[in-house]
């Protein structure tokens, strides 16, 4: 059965390519249908009962956060919940994918993938507004992922160079990062010894490092601002001297020819005997080398034939929305780590390749599937359900928390939106930046909760200020029950249960002056688990 299906897909893809039409809706099965049939087949094999379809409010909040990085407003919530159109979810997805905030959210997600919270050469890479502007532009213009990665590896477009500045003078670090992020392969173990269980040896590692050893990061200072250029020398080799435990001071190694991972040695013209490296001069940029290893690597990584590239990104984008990669961890493709749904992964990779690596197209398909739209309720307690039988749970990032607090409390309406930055400042980053342990498990911390409880920077969202949510609730004249319902629709994007309404009204009325109580009620919802996570 699977082989027939794959053949069908391949035929469809081939036919579509020949016709020049996007294969998304053509042929037997759209990708979203294929996703659902594969996931359902997985459940059947394990006799798993999945969660039901998500409620509208659950889906609404989840898809807003995943696509635009913030929650819907009260009015958007009410309109969606009241809409009787059977295709309203699909239409909402189209609307959000066309929203300019989608590009910003994608840029935030991928910035975290490319740099993490503690990038190398942090003095240069900590503040990377120029990079983020470049990255957002790529997503806004719908640049194909293969072109985007190519630009990152070339580092020639203004803003893109900062990615490689992380690895300045550290070709080994570049090797590890680029293999992990773009090829889904953990090469790091093979730096110091042959990989203990995977097939990679040190020669494979240093073969890849050969592509980065000639890279030079040039620095120019104009006033206070440093700018960087990714340049490349015409010579320079990686010297390999054996396992790390056998090293002794003064032990020189032998040069290693660059080799594509799992592939052939680089076909390189020999350096002419009388070639000399130009002397670096201040203010003068290094000329382009006659043969660029950097370009060859960029070509190879992003080629459609590259055996790792498409699967790695398809897996990563799947994990972005479904919680867990089909290969998990998302950047650990190896023989011992089998994909949970191998045919699905192949289909995602093939179709993405056929669609010119258009990530927006892939996201549209994933988010329209029934699998993505499952409820977050259910008996399975896993954060990231293994068989995608329930929606995954993820904490909001620091970036999302800042934006969501603003949206939930109508912060813009107070007219004071400039003094609180729209991207997380140092305090927000410290409290919310890195909430996971080494294995990716979420951990609540003292510093996060002391911040929630006592920081003025949080209180400013809940405290009454003309125009904000607390002010609107206090200034309204309808009964408290109605106002509490509005509170829930605004902050949690769902109708309140009768028990919740009763409890909140009792709380607010327990004081003759309701100002403090309404502020506290808003605060309680802002710091709740329901708000803190996307589920």
């Amino acid at each position, binding site marked *: 059965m699977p082989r027939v299906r794959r053949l069908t897909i391949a035929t469809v893809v081939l036919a579509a390519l020949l016709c020049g039409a996007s294969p998304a809706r053509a042929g037997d099965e759209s990708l979203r249908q294929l996703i659902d049939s594969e996931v359902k087949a997985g459940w059947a094999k394990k006799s798993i009962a999945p969660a039901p379809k998500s409620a509208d409010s659950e889906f609404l909040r989840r898809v807003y956060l995943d696509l635009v990085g913030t929650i819907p407003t009260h009015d958007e919530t009410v309109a969606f919940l009241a809409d009787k159109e059977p295709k309203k979810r699909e239409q909402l997805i189209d609307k959000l994918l066309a929203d300019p905030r989608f590009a910003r959210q994608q840029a935030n997600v991928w910035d975290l993938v490319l740099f993490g919270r503690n990038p190398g050469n942090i003095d240069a890479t900590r503040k990377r507004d120029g990079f983020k502007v470049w990255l957002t532009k790529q997503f806004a213009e719908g640049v194909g992922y293969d072109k985007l990665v190519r630009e990152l590896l070339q580092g020639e477009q203004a803003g893109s160079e900062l990615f490689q500045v992380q690895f300045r003078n550290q070709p080994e670090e570049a090797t590890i990062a680029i293999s992990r992020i773009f090829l889904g392969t953990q090469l790091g173990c093979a730096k110091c010894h042959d990989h203990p269980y995977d097939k990679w040896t040190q020669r494979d590692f240093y073969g890849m490092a050969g592509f980065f050893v000639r890279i030079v990061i040039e620095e120019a200072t104009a006033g206070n601002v440093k700018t960087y250029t990714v340049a490349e020398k015409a010579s320079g080799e990686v010297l390999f001297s054996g396992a790390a435990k056998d090293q002794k001071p003064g032990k020189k190694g032998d040069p290693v020819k660059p080799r594509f991972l799992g592939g052939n040695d680089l076909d390189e013209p020999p350096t002419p005997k009388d070639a000399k490296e130009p002397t670096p001069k201040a203010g003068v940029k290094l000329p382009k080398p006659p043969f660029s290893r950097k370009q060859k690597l960029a070509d190879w990584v992003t080629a459609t034939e590259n055996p790792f590239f498409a699967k790695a990104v398809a897996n990563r984008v799947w994990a972005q929305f479904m919680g867990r990669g089909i290969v998990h961890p998302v950047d650990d493709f190896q023989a011992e780590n089998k994909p949970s749904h191998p045919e699905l992964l192949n289909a995602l990779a093939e179709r993405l390749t056929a669609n010119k690596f258009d990530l927006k197209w892939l996201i549209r398909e994933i988010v329209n599937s029934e699998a993505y739209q499952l409820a977050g309720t259910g008996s399975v307690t896993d954060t990231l359900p293994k068989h995608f039988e329930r929606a995954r749970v993820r904490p909001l990032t620091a970036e999302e928390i800042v934006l969501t607090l603003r949206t939930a409390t109508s912060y813009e309406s107070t007219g004071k939106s400039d003094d609180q930055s729209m991207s997380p400042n140092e305090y927000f980053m410290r409290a919310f930046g890195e909430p996971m342990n080494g294995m990716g498990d979420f*951990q609540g911390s*003292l510093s996060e*909760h*002391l911040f929630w*409880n006592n920081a003025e920077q949080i209180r400013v969202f809940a405290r009454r200020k003309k125009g904000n949510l607390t002010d609107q609730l206090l200034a309204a004249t309808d009964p408290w029950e109605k106002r509490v319902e509005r509170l829930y629709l605004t902050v949690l994007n769902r109708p309140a249960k009768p028990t919740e309404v009763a409890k909140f009204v009792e709380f607010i009325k327990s004081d003759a002056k309701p100002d403090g109580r309404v502020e506290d009620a808003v605060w309680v919802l802002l710091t709740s688990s329901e708000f803190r996570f996307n589920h």
Partner: protein
Amino acid sequence: MNPFCRTGDHLSRRAFLKGAAVSGGGLVLPNWGGLAHAKTAAEIASKAKKRCILLWMNGGASQIDTFDMKPGRPTGGPFRPIQSKVTGLQVCEYLPKVAAVADKLAVIRSMQTHSPDHPDGIYHMHTCYKMSERTPHPELGAVIAKYNGDLGSDLPTFVRMGSCGNAGAGYLGPAHEPFSLGRDGKLGSFSTPYLADDAEKKRADLFRFVESEFAVDHKAEPFASHRTAKERAWRLLRAKAVFDISKEWPTAKERYGDSDFGRGCLMARKLVEAGVPFVEVGQENYDSHADNFVCHKANMQLLDPAYSGLLTDLSERGLLKDTLVIWMGEVGRTPGINNRAGRDHFIRAWTTVLAGGGIVGGQVYGATDADGKDVKENPVSEGDLFATIYKALGINHRAKHLTGVRPVWLTPEGSQPVKELLG
């Protein structure tokens, strides 16, 4: 008379009113509610895991001017050694009180380490791994907090004052991150609630209601982690009184010396007494590239009463056998004296000191040569030191964790606990 308790176990009335329980051994117990289930207070105290205090000599103290004197040698400097309580162990003349408690000390004179500067040295001596590895190793305090701490207690499990480590909780995760106190015991940022007590309580109750409603249908682990961390923060805010040493200080300063560092040491004693498994107290500043002797004489005059006072206090309260006290900096200092009467960084042969926590006191482990330029016998690496510390505290020094897909161990391969120190 209740057959299960003795007079000494009865709670002092004042302590009761303060909401703390004091055992016969003087141990202030967290979680007052827990007492109701135990037969005696002493039983709870004995179940508590071992604790640790790190006295961090920021900048790197000179071993030749403190615990590894070289009288008469060209590298010896102007200070003279004095005989300590222990035959064969001499210390600097400016550490007379420490000399009097030398029977508690295990002086390791043969430290041989690998990170010579401050950022890398601080990292290496807090995590026993090199900073250049770019792996998020946890500090000593985070490891002890995780293995010997109780996340259900009122107080943080990893407390520090003054100069300290730069690695944080690493791959162990934010649940074990350090909690900073100001030198005067003032709590770090965001430790003061802006609501009055009763409004806080009402707000907290509403929060618990909202959470219990949500938990009916949502059972994934992160939600529980979020809730318990919030309760932990609230408990800390209610237990803030423990950090107030102003009543005890006027008498205690006779013993600890009237200095910031002395106050820090008293605070450390109070906190381990209350069950905090790890407290770090930093002393400024030993980085004497110039005027080494002026600097060290001044620092030792603060170190002497505080260090000895802490050990004596812990011992008198019966806490020393369960509390490991570590004295160390990030590097040692050169035997050679430079042209500014200073000593520079030196990692080939230097000294750390362990006391309490089951460490065999009154001994010297390892030796340096006549001028202190190299280790003569029994070199101790960062990994060996940490293995010894973890073993003393009942922690497996080869415990394995994962950071991403990479396995990491608490100490590097080949690290061995020093048997002579552990007895």
